[in-house]
């Protein structure tokens, strides 16, 4: 009790000016970017909803007048048990002129038997198996090679889809002929399994469902999720499809942008995915994801910072934003902590609770904007209880994971040894500087 009185006395004494000095990091980078900017963009976006609805209906009509064939591809390893569920969920789609192509990349379980069976019974159109694993990129490329559709939808076999998902992810191509790729809205299906999954539910909502409306609107949307992304077939051909991963989702998006295509995020094309339910597994997954930032942003596609033929502000800013928020700020955060400890060490027991309180307030504000946008906000109401924990999840768990990944990749090029790609591919990619 005494502490709380002391706490308020202290902050009252400090005053606003000094508070900004202490929490500059939070106020400028976190609150400014994730609360103020997002609220503003979402507000503007909301204002344009009537015009968008009209354009959307026209594009939808155009899609159904043309009725193009859409190739749904799901490359993967040991996904047998998911394929049947996937096919079932695809049968429920409102848009039905599709072909389903499954590539089994060297599974060592019963996947080939299941796949062959579904193929024989006409539930999938082509099932191709590589006896030798070639990695995710080559599996996707193989599926692309045998796709005949006008558009290609890249899916993860362990995802399931809203009934209108296929229709909604294709419609944007009819909104703007310059669009070369559309990202779908990925949400968490197994959020109620564990705390770890719950926190990811919030994270996905923040960074994908709402975060990408914002980045897409600002023209700096970076990653078409491999779990659910649509591409124009001719665009894929032009950019030479997928290169070796990891991070091939981000890579292909950058390649599309570099070739002059626009990238769009479609919040109404909804897909549900299962996330890791244990922190240990999540840690590994995020290490891999984070490493790709160094590899693709800073090594392979460094030329977006240099002027060239298809140089675009959007691509450039997207890169800058991504690198800044993930990489530069990551380093700055440590400087900030050091700043706090050195300059305000005597007041540290007042600073930490205040800092946490501020983050929580920001967290709740973001949650408010999520629930305003979500089509399943009823179901997601339970997530409110977990918002305070998000502070720790984002500030510590994810940050430490990211830092470790950057250090490893930057200094030791760890991703080239990633068991996620077969050795033969990684070796060739390293040698040729991809």
């Amino acid at each position, binding site marked *: 009790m005494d502490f709380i009185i002391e706490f308020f006395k202290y902050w009252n004494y400090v005053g606003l000016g000094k508070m900004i000095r202490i929490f500059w990091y939070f106020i400028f980078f976190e609150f400014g970017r994730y609360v103020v900017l997002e609220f503003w963009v979402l507000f503007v976006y909301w204002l344009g909803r009537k015009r968008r609805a009209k354009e959307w209906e026209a594009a939808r009509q155009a899609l159904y007048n043309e009725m193009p064939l859409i190739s749904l591809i799901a490359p993967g390893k040991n996904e047998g048990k998911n394929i049947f569920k996937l096919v079932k969920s695809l049968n429920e789609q409102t848009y039905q002129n599709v072909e389903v192509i499954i590539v089994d990349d060297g599974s060592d379980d019963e996947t080939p038997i299941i796949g062959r069976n579904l193929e024989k019974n006409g539930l999938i159109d082509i099932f191709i198996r590589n006896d030798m694993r070639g990695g995710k990129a080559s599996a996707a490329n193989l599926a692309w090679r045998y796709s005949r559709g006008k558009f290609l939808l890249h899916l993860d076999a362990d995802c399931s889809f809203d009934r209108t998902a296929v229709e909604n992810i294709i419609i944007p191509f009819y909104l703007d002929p310059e669009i070369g790729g559309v990202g779908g809205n990925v949400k968490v299906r197994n959020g109620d399994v564990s705390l770890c999954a719950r926190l990811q539910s919030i994270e996905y909502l923040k960074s994908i469902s709402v975060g990408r409306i914002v980045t897409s609107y600002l023209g700096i949307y970076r990653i078409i999720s491999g779990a659910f992304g649509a591409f124009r077939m001719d665009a894929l051909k032009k950019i030479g499809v997928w290169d070796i991963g990891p991070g091939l989702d981000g890579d292909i998006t950058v390649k599309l942008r570099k070739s002059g295509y626009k990238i769009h995020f479609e919040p109404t094309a909804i897909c549900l995915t299962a996330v890791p339910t244990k922190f240990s597994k999540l840690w590994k997954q995020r290490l891999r994801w984070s490493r790709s930032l160094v590899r693709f942003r800073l090594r392979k596609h460094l030329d977006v910072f240099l002027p060239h033929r298809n140089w675009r502000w959007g691509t450039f800013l997207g890169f800058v934003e991504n690198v800044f928020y993930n990489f530069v700020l990551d380093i700055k955060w440590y400087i900030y902590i050091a700043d706090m400890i050195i300059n305000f060490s005597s007041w540290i027991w007042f600073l930490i609770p205040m800092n946490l309180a501020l983050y929580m307030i920001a967290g709740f504000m973001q949650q408010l904007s999520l629930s305003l946008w979500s089509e399943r906000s009823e179901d997601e109401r339970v997530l409110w209880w977990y918002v305070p924990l998000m502070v720790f999840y984002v500030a510590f768990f994810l940050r430490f994971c990211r830092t470790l990944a950057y250090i490893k990749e930057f200094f030791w090029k760890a991703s080239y040894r990633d068991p996620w790609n077969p050795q*033969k591919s990684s070796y*060739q990619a390293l040698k040729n500087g991809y």
Partner: protein
Amino acid sequence: MLAINKINKQALIEYEDFLFMYVEEEEAFDSEKIFYVDAIIINSSSTRLFEKVLKVTRTHYDAEIYLKPIFCVQYEGLPLQVIERCDGLTDVTQYQKIARTTREIKNNVQKLFLQQKFPSNEFGVLYKTMQYLYTRNHDLVPFVNRHARLSYTYPFVSLQLEDEEQKKILDILKKGIQDGFLREEQMLDKIHICDACYSAHHNIRETCLHCNGIDLKVQDLIHHFQCAYIGPETDFMQEYTDDLICPKCQKILRHIGVDYDKPSHIFNCNTCSEHFQNPVFTYNCVDCGKISDIRHLQEHLIKRISLTAKGKQLVLSGLPRKTYESDSKAKEVTGVYELDVFKNILEQEKARTAFNPGRTFFGKVAVVDEKLNGISWKEKMILRDELARELKSYLKEYDMVTAVSAGEFYFLKLECTPEKLEELGELIVFNLEALVRSNVKDSQVVVSVNTQPVLHNQTVVM
């Protein structure tokens, strides 16, 4: 003592106390004489003659003839189908050997019980085969024969059935094995036969998953490691050079396993231009033209088969009378029917009750007695028929009875009321129990009667 009485090309040879028929030409073969010769010796390289003699003798109704010894004179290149089916290869001078074998066979034939009637044609074939095996003291050894529908010919048995019916051989032998008369010895082969015509002759081809076309092209898939491109070999092939060049990154593929590999293959159908990796293997039946998935072929094991002690016993003592006469006996008493017939009539009655409900009943009579296990099968059959007749005597002329076994009977009571039915049940229990007690020593018999109304559109619980 050797005397040759030659009439044209067909000669009769007397040797010791035997008379052999000696045949050299088809036209000279006189089937009328088979009955009084002891064996037939064929001296011809003509398979046709051999087949004709074999067919005439082995399919005769008389055991003395269908079991007649047949010998062949050894020729270079005599086909397997001759060698495997005659009782011995011989030289024109080896009458002693022929006589010895003939004597053995004749002695064995004389020991046989001369069974004339069989419960079914199939059983007749089985029975005759067992006789054949007994008299030859030899196992039944099928041999490969490209003229045979099953691709295998069984000595003796195959002749008993027409070409289209050859599959029945397998069923007949299986029945013999199930009943313990025959025993399977070592496995010789597996055959796969058409499920429409039971022929083992077919072409097996790879066909398209989608259109059943057979014009398929298979190609390796090539994976270029550097750029992750993967596609069929033709994507990499060049018009003017033998180089393989990656269509994505334009690099030349140099060394398999280092910069590229071939992780799989893919089929392309030239008929419908679909792609797939696993074609369907289909067969095209040479005999009936059916085209179907090879999984529809029936697999059968070809085994050497021997006669068991039980089988020998059967051919020596003949069939118990009831097994081949039960059909006719059951029908002698009007109103006692075979189970199948009974079920048929029951179905008709069910339909009829739609117009006349509540007056038809199905009854089940159970006769339980441990002592029944002790009596022989033959006695059991006699008791069964007697019980069925007794049961029928308490029913009206148009009511029906069937015997499932010596312990279970069904009846169908028409135009009855539940009260009358109950009286009837008591009567049946009392009288059947009395009948069993008088027939079986120390009987503890319990007879029970269960009835249910027969109703339109309602299954009768048997």
